[in-house]
């Protein structure tokens, strides 16, 4: 019976994983945009709900005092020495540290200029079995100026192998996202968004119903699938076992895709 339950757990976990993978693969640009809009609108309320009420302070102090007394007694009985001032009981044990890096709500190491609107970067999170690091959260380097084409350049914190080397004027970097084999960079200008996504493996393409599709050559010899809707244009192509994607306004798409270059060694 126990073995059966274990098998059922594994099977149900596989079903859940496959459904989630399928959802992720099949998301259209419109769905992604709508989900991100909802997230931006409701993020603060959701985080408030998660944070909830803090425990009453006196209760925590009571538990801390009891723990200290017990520790003092144990140390005295065992070693016959007085307890040092800085006791381990006053600090949470290492095993209790949350497995994730500093939450995105923590302040970044760079201070943004007052004219910029920033969204904290969402960092790549290790699995709970990995040892937590003390590395500072990856920071965004927002810019209002085009990325220079000369020399391979990328935004600080970008972990993908490829990155656009030049953008039309006026785009400001909003966020970088690295998750589950996918790296995304987002810029914004006049309320319109530009996305560059790099998948660490070749991916099937989800095309919006009614999109106009054709193949276009890129300067490096790649052939990209160009899909166009009222919302904008998406260019998708493969390079060295990775799928790259640029999604933005019509006028800019080919130019941006054309200057995507390799910026890191594998």
């Amino acid at each position, binding site marked *: *019976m126990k*073995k*059966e*339950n274990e*098998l*059922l*757990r*594994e*099977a*149900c*976990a*596989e*079903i*859940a*994983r496959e*459904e*989630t993978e399928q*959802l992720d693969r099949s*998301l259209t640009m419109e*769905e*992604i945009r*709508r*989900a*991100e809009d*909802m*997230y931006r609108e*409701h*993020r603060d309320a*959701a*985080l408030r*709900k*998660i*944070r*909830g009420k803090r*425990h009453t302070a006196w209760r*925590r102090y009571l*538990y*801390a005092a*009891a*723990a200290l007394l*017990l520790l003092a007694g*144990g140390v005295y009985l065992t070693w016959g020495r007085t307890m040092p001032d800085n006791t381990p*009981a006053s600090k*949470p*044990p290492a095993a*209790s*540290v*949350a*497995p*994730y*890096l500093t*939450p*995105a*709500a923590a302040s970044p190491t760079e201070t943004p200029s007052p004219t910029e609107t920033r969204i904290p970067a*969402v960092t790549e*999170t290790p*699995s*709970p*079995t990995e040892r937590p690091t003390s590395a500072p959260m990856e920071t965004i380097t927002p810019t209002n100026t085009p990325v220079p084409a000369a020399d391979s350049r990328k935004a600080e914190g970008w972990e993908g192998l490829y990155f656009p080397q030049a953008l039309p004027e006026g785009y400001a970097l909003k966020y970088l996202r690295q998750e*589950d084999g996918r790296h995304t960079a987002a810029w914004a200008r006049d309320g319109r968004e530009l996305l560059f996504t790099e998948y660490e493996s070749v991916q099937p393409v989800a095309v919006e119903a009614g999109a106009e599709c054709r193949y276009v050559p890129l300067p490096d010899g790649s052939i990209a699938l160009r899909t166009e809707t009222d919302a904008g244009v998406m260019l998708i192509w493969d390079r060295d076992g990775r799928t790259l994607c640029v999604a933005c306004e019509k006028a800019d798409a080919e130019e941006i895709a054309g200057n995507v270059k390799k910026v890191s060694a594998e």
Partner: protein
Amino acid sequence: MLPLVFLTMEPGDDRAFLEQAYLDYHRLMYAQALRVLRDDAAAEDAVSDALLSLMKKISLLRTFDRNKLRAYCVITVKHAAISALRRRQKEHPAAEDRLSDTADEGRVEDGLMERAGVERIKEAIRRLPEQEMRIMVMRYFREMTDGEIAQETGLQPVSVRVHLSRARKRLREILSGEEAQL
């Protein structure tokens, strides 16, 4: 002494964990809710409900790797959205099943499931009726109790047990039918 030490910790560690999961997987969570409900306000409520459900399972979630955690968050939202859809459509909960139909939950120790293996069990679960499959996932993946499943589905707890019992019976029928063909 250790439990006392843990009690001194801010439960904020759990909150930080859930916050990070929300930040990492928000896109899939909102997208899943929108796919089911097609309405922003209802989708936002579903994600909120899901976050509250996730808060109750933090100790379980901490044992998961990233893929499993991601799947758990998305499936929790999906189930919350389906529950909201059910309430919105004012579906009547399933008629109370006969208590005498509880029977066994596949307690026969014949090794059928062990011989079948995870892959075939997974395919057999996919062949179950939608509600039974969902309840199986709630029990065996989300590790929900009868009461929790009842609350989310609108069924009575005894009906949940009946559905689970039927689901396991159907699974065994499917698997033994396949085995006979081999």
